[in-house]
Each structure stands twice: as structure tokens, then as C-alpha cells.
């Protein structure tokens, strides 16, 4: 055999290389051939009631009864006066541990050197909880990566709506967080009386199964936040501007459209609306959450209903008639600032904007009054109001903590659960007298500048654990107004068809839902025609909608038989 020349591609060394690569490839082929299927992201359904391992509920007697007695949870009671606070915890624990808890923060994070943090540490019995405050706007999405990397300190606080951002939260929970079951099971009222006073439903909603197919593996993984009901969002109208324009508060969607036309003036820079994407579906009877309603013996998604087209027609009309701020599609508008300035008359926001508007305009001296629109509906339908249906949030602890550390943190959580009318609530929610607030003429704490910047931050210790009972609090006028508002809409509250179960949709369903939202915006902002809706819906069905229906139907049947 002739020796390969230097120019030949088959030199000895090359031959060895080719042979080596070939062998490696051949060895790899069975590996590739023996591949399994992709299994992740098939969705879960988790029962949230009927467990025998939850903390035994023991009512924690309120030190003072509320002035306005409602019908919780959708019509909570309220305080129009500030009661003399009394201590909730008689024997303070003696702790010295330090924890790092990751929490969302909207706005500027206050310095951890502020006396507020040291005062809370002293008041709770010596536990120092350092807050890792991360941007609330992106918190839901980025928390997915922190949890995957186990980079969230000793714990993390997640609001319930943030769970939608997690592709497979059940898997995350059971692999990342401390299983609290053995610590909180049974009667915990001696050491943690306030945690024992949390509603059983709150603890039930803090349960995930280590094996989603086996109900026997259910365990408690989170410290529940407050169990609040009633509307979480509202469309707020600038009532002073409506009055100046000779317009009354609209009571139907048709009236709202007329008012919007009357108050909008595109050429002079005033519009009725900025955002109209969430909450507005309820005006057309569409479902909240994942968008399923049980109609005529089966689960039907919002996008499959004729009301969906009506809703998108409404949004498109607002856009075409220049009733929406023209930069709304950019997603960069500061709606609250525009609302305060009167550039937009209606602001879609969380219910807390009611008090926020008053606080901010009072501090800035800009004036103005707002009120939420009532239970609206279109075409003479019975109104529907989306309401909160469970715990607002959870604090999850890192699985790497020791039992002693977890117990110490539960001491702290017990402290945070003290309700309105207690000294614990006062220091958590108002800070230190003289440093963060002073008592006003009617005895109500009034924040000073430091208090506004540090304690009034939307998330800190005060949201780390649920209160034994949630009340309407604030200025007497606001409490009265919110109490009456809740009373006026409570009868239209949407029934939760998955009551007693937490259903997490399959990955494909979630993915198709994201595309649907993008397509909705295309129609609402004039980038696509209303005639594209049927095609949108077919695409949605084919790419995850039907898979989602199967999953949710199975969950529904498990619940209702």
C-alpha cells in the first residue's frame, strides 16, 4: 500500500483524527438514539383544602373591634378611628439571628441604615431581617432565574400573581424551599399564636405536592400573606375633571364611552385613558385568572366567547377615536403622573392608587379628587367584578436553613402577623414616633418625609406574613369610601370555579396565552384588524389552548365531579 503523500487528505495523523471523531460520533449515536421525550411543563393541579397537617386554627382575639363591620373577604371591615395600640405578643422571644430575604420593591429602595430596621429588629425580639430589595417591575421574571440558581438569600417573598411567570412553579417550590410541615403542623398557638390565627384557607393555599400526581405528598412550603378579598384593581376617574366638564360618573360601558368622547381632546393633549388592558374584560363578562369559564357543560376560554370580540372592539374604538394617550403602546407612560396632571381622566390601577392619589396630591399641593368606577357592564348584562380569591403573597424560606433558623423566622413572621390596633402593627406600618410619624389631631399616625420614604414603601416587613384579619385602614374619609365601594360591588363578585384547587397550566398553554396577549394589543392599537380574531383563536387552540382545556377540565372535574 502506498504511503499517503503530504498532500493527501489521508495522512496518518488525519486518519487518526477522523477515526477518533468517527468513534466518538458512533459512541454518541446510541446516546442520541436512546433519547427520551421532553417531559417538563405539563402543568399541575393542587388541592388547597382538606389537609390534616395544617396548623390548627385558633382564633386570635382582636384587641379592638372595627368601626365599620363588613362581610369579609370581599367586603372587609374597616377602622375610621385610630385605636390606642396594645401589644399583641406578651412574651418576646430572645433571638439573635440574621436573615436575608429577597423582596420586590417599586420605587427607590430605602437605606438599610434607617432606624426603622433596627427598631423592628429590637421590637420583634432580636431577629435581624435584611431586605434584598429588587425591582418590582421585573421581579416576577427575574425571580425565576434566582430560584433556579438558588440565589435568593434565606428566603423570598412572592406575590400570588408572580407565580404566572414561573414555567413550573411546583417543581421550583419542592426543590428550592423549606418544607415547613413538621414545624407548623397541629397546635402552634403557644409559640406562634398569631400564625395559628391565620385562616386555615391561607395555610391550605401554601401547600404544594412534592409529586404532583400523588396527593399524599402534599406539604406546607410557604408562610402565607394576608387573605384579602374584594376588588384588587379599579378604573379611577378624576371626579373633579368630570364635574368641570359637566359629566356624571358613568354607570355603564356605553355611558363611559360617551364620557370619554366628551373629555378627550387629542389636539390639546388630554385623553380619557392610558391603559385599558386588564380589568376592562370584566365589563364584558369575561373571566379573570387564566380566562376559563364553565359554560353549557364545558370549559370555555375568554378568547372563544363572543364577548371577547366585543371587548376588543371597545378597546379598538377607544384607540381609533383618539380617546387613549397616543404613547400608550410604548409601555413607557407614567400613568399615575398623567392622572395627577389631568392629562388622562381615567387611570387603570391597583386599588391602593385611591389612597396614593390623595397622599401624593396633598403632599404636592396639586389637588384633584378621584373615585373608582362602579360595577360596569356592556349591553345591559349583569355586571361582573373580578376579586381577589386567595392569599396575596407567600414568604418562602430556603431549604438550606436549619430547623432552628426556620423556627426563629417563624417568630418574626408571628410578629408581622399582628393586626391593626397593636403596637407591633404600628411599628411595622408607621415606624418610630417622632422619627417616621407623628400623631395627627385625631390620633391617627401621619408620616413625615422619612416615614414616607422608608416605611411607606409598598413592600417590607409589613407584607412578610399575613395579618390575622385584614381591615380597611387610612384616613377616615377613605376608609368610609372604600367600605361603601366594596359594599356596592360585592354582589357582583366573580365566583372562583377552581375554589379549593390551584391549577397551573401546561407550558404550551402559557406560551399560547402570551402570544394571545400580544395579538390582543395588535388589535387594540390598530396594528391588526378585528377580522383576525378567528384566526388568532384557531392559532391559540392549536398551539396550547386545547392542551390547556384538557388540563383545566380534568382539574374542574376533580373538583366538581
Amino acid at each position: 500500500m502506498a504511503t499517503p503523500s503530504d498532500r493527501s487528505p489521508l495522512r496518518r495523523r488525519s486518519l487518526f483524527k477522523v477515526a477518533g471523531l468517527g468513534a466518538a460520533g458512533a459512541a454518541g449515536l446510541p446516546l442520541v438514539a436512546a433519547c427520551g421525550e421532553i417531559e417538563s411543563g405539563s402543568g399541575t393541579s393542587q388541592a388547597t383544602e382538606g389537609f390534616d397537617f395544617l396548623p390548627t386554627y385558633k382564633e386570635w382575639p382582636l384587641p379592638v373591634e372595627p368601626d365599620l363591620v363588613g362581610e369579609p373577604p370581599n367586603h372587609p371591615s374597616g377602622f375610621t378611628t385610630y385605636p390606642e395600640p396594645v401589644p399583641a405578643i406578651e412574651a418576646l422571644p430572645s433571638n439573635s439571628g440574621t436573615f436575608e430575604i429577597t423582596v420586590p420593591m417599586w420605587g427607590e429602595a430605602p437605606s438599610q441604615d434607617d432606624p426603622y430596621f433596627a427598631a423592628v429588629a429590637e421590637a420583634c425580639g432580636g431577629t435581624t431581617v435584611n431586605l434584598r430589595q429588587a425591582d418590582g417591575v421585573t421581579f416576577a421574571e427575574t425571580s425565576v432565574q434566582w430560584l433556579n440558581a438558588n440565589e435568593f438569600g434565606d428566603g423570598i417573598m412572592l406575590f400570588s400573581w408572580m407565580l404566572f411567570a414561573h414555567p413550573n412553579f411546583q417543581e421550583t417550590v419542592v426543590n428550592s424551599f423549606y418544607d415547613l410541615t413538621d414545624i407548623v403542623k397541629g397546635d402552634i398557638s403557644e409559640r406562634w399564636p398569631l400564625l395559628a390565627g391565620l385562616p386555615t384557607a391561607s395555610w391550605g393555599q401554601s401547600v404544594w405536592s412534592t409529586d404532583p400526581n400523588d396527593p399524599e405528598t402534599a406539604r406546607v412550603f410557604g408562610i402565607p400573606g394576608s387573605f384579602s378579598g374584594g376588588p384588587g384593581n379599579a378604573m379611577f376617574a378624576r371626579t373633579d375633571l368630570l364635574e368641570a366638564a359637566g359629566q356624571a360618573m358613568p354607570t355603564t360601558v356605553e355611558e363611559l364611552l360617551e364620557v370619554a368622547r366628551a373629555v378627550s381632546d387629542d389636539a390639546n393633549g388630554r385623553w380619557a385613558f392610558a391603559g385599558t388592558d386588564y380589568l376592562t374584560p370584566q365589563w364584558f363578562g369575561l373571566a379573570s385568572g387564566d380566562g376559563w369559564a364553565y359554560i353549557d357543560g364545558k370549559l370555555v376560554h375568554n378568547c372563544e366567547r363572543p364577548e371577547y370580540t366585543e371587548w376588543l372592539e371597545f378597546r379598538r374604538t377607544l384607540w381609533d377615536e383618539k380617546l387613549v394617550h397616543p404613547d400608550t403602546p410604548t409601555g413607557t407612560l407614567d400613568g399615575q403622573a398623567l392622572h395627577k396632571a389631568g392629562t388622562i381622566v381615567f387611570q387603570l390601577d391597583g386599588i391602593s392608587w385611591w389612597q396614593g392619589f390623595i397622599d401624593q396630591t396633598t403632599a404636592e399641593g396639586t389637588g384633584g379628587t378621584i373615585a373608582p368606577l362602579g360595577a360596569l357592564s356592556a349591553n345591559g348584562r349583569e355586571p361582573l367584578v373580578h376579586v381577589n380569591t386567595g392569599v396575596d403573597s407567600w414568604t418562602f424560606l430556603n431549604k438550606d436553613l436549619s430547623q432552628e433558623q426556620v423556627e426563629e423566622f417563624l417568630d418574626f413572621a408571628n410578629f408581622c402577623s399582628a393586626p391593626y390596633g397593636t403596637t407591633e402593627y404600628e411599628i411595622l406600618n408607621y415606624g418610630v414616633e417622632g422619627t417616621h410619624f407623628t400623631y395627627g389631631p385625631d390620633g391617627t399616625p401621619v408620616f413625615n418625609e422619612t416615614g414616607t420614604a422608608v416605611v411607606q414603601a409598598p413592600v417590607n416587613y409589613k407584607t412578610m406574613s399575613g395579618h390575622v384579619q385584614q381591615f380597611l385602614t387610612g384616613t377616615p374619609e377613605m376608609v368610609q369610601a372604600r367600605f361603601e365601594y366594596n359594599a356596592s360591588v360585592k354582589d357582583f363578585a366573580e365566583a372562583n370555579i377552581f375554589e379549593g384547587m390551584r391549577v397551573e397550566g401546561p407550558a404550551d398553554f402559557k406560551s399560547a396565552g402570551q402570544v394571545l396577549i400580544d395579538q390582543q394589543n395588535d388589535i387594540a392599537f390598530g396594528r391588526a384588524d378585528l377580522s383576525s380574531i378567528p384566526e388568532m383563536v384557531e392559532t391559540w387552540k392549536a398551539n396550547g389552548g386545547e392542551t390547556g382545556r384538557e388540563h383545566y377540565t380534568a382539574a374542574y372535574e376533580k373538583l366538581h365531579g
Partner: protein
Amino acid sequence: MAALQTSAPPAPSRRQARPRGRNKRTLAQRLRHDWPLLLLTLPALAQLAVFFYWPSAWNIIAFMDYSPHRPFWENPFVGFAWFERLFANPYFLPALLNTLKYAFANLLFLFPLSIVLALVMHSVVSTKVRSLFQSVVYLPYFFSWVLVVTVFVQTLGSDGLVSNWLLDFGGERLTFTSNPDSFLFLAWLQWAWKDAGWGMIIFLAALASINPSLYEAAAVDGASRWRRMWHITLPGIRPVIVLLLILHIGGILNVGFEQYQLQRNAVGYQTTEVLDTFVYYRSVIGTEGPSFGTAAGLFKGVIGLILVLVANNVAHRLGEQGIYQKS
């Protein structure tokens, strides 16, 4: 007649015997000789190893049903299942086509602009004017995309400065910051403002390396300004143009992320969905998981590598140096 040589000629010294160019030293000798230089490369090697090669090794999860919650070796191999899923995704092809559209637009309209800017700069005689022009043109490169997009919305948006001027004069609001049909033009304006200056700097460096005596000689021979640019300047920077062109082609699927993500709400996902945003929305914050995103990244990498090799090969065949000197 020369006497017959009966004895062997004296053996040449080892040094003399070695033919030129084959003066090879052993590895040990070379290490002994070059160790200070090798030491200098260590930080760069470490940086590459930590931030490039080690993360690159994790591309293997594109072939696994990977979950960060189980030990690495317990993740099952799924072969090309994620790639199948990627190619079957109805939004992948539109994202790929958008990526190619913006990449080619960038290549066609921005790349020559940088060259033109560099030539204009090169022809400016006044040092003061040149340095002012240079600063003004390339400073936006250091602005973040958030700032660039905000500036455009604030000035050219529907409620921006120009729109409000137009309204004052009885005109209509501008809509092209939220119009999908004009997004390519908007994107080009943003590239031109942000990136053209940076490209210019690189070409300016190449222009500085041209021997000025060539221009003087050409001028003496009566060559016009245009002829000098055509026959001296452009050939002088041709290797750099080719090098950058090849690198651009290699990175053709890397059109960036922020510019498109930030304007997604304004003009819609169908216009702004490129491969990077596709991965972000499906994998990073979506529900497809890390394996899916890695498969998409690997696809981009393989296409980029093929394009670089092809473009480099073509450059060599055309007699250019390409990204490396062909030995």
C-alpha cells in the same frame, strides 16, 4: 584536475547543517524562552475559560430535558427534540426572517455609512472641527438603548416634541414610533445615530495607517481628490472593510436584543420579534425552559460559524486577507 577527495568532508556544525526556516526548538526550550510572554496571556486565557469556554460547555443542555433542580447527570438526554420543537414553533420562522431582515438592512445601510463618515472625517483638515465632529458622532455609541429609544419617543413620538410643534402649526401627530410599517426606517435612524460613529472610528484608524506620501505623489501626478480616494484611500482600508464585513456576516443573527424588546409594545411583536427576543420571551421569561433557549442559541452559533467560514473562504479566493492570513 582537482585531487580526488578521499576523506569525508568535515561534518558541518550542527548549526550550519540546519536548513533555514527549520530551526525548530523543543517544547521545553520554547517554554524556557517564552515563559514571560506566555505568562502575559494567562489572564486573557483565564477570562476566556471562565466566561466563554466553560459556559459554552453547557450548550450540552440543548440535548437534555434539563432542570436546574436535579443533579446534572440525572437530566435525560433527548437528542434533537428541543431543536425539533424549536423549528416546529410557529413563531420561530417569523423571528428568523425578521432577524435576517434587520441584519441585512444594517449591513446594507449602516456599514457603508460608517465608511462614508470616516472618509468625510478624514478629509476635514481642521483638527478642532474634526475632534468636535468625531465626539458628536460617536458619543451616542455609549448611550444605552433605553436612553436612545426614550430620546426618540420624546422627540419623534406621538406626544413628542416634534408632534407638538406640528400640532401648533395645524399639522398631525407623528405616528412612526408606533407604526410597524415604518419600523425599519426608525430602526435605521437609531442605528445611524447610535452606532455609525463607532464604526467610523475603526475605519479612521485604518485610514491613519495609509502613508501620506502616497497622496502627495498622486497629487503631484495631478490626481483629483476623487481619484486619490478611489485609488489610494479605499484600497488602503480594503482589508479592514473585508475583515469587518466577514465579522458582521458571522454575527448576522446577533442583531441585538434591547432595541427590539424596548419597542415591542409600541410596534407589536410581529415586527420586533427577532431570535434574541424570541428566546427571551419563550425561554428566559417564558415557559419553554433553558434547554429550548440553548438550542436556539446553538442554532445561531452554528449558522454564524458557517457564515464566517464561507465569507472568509470567499475573501481568500478573492485575494483578501480575511480574518487571518492564509499560510
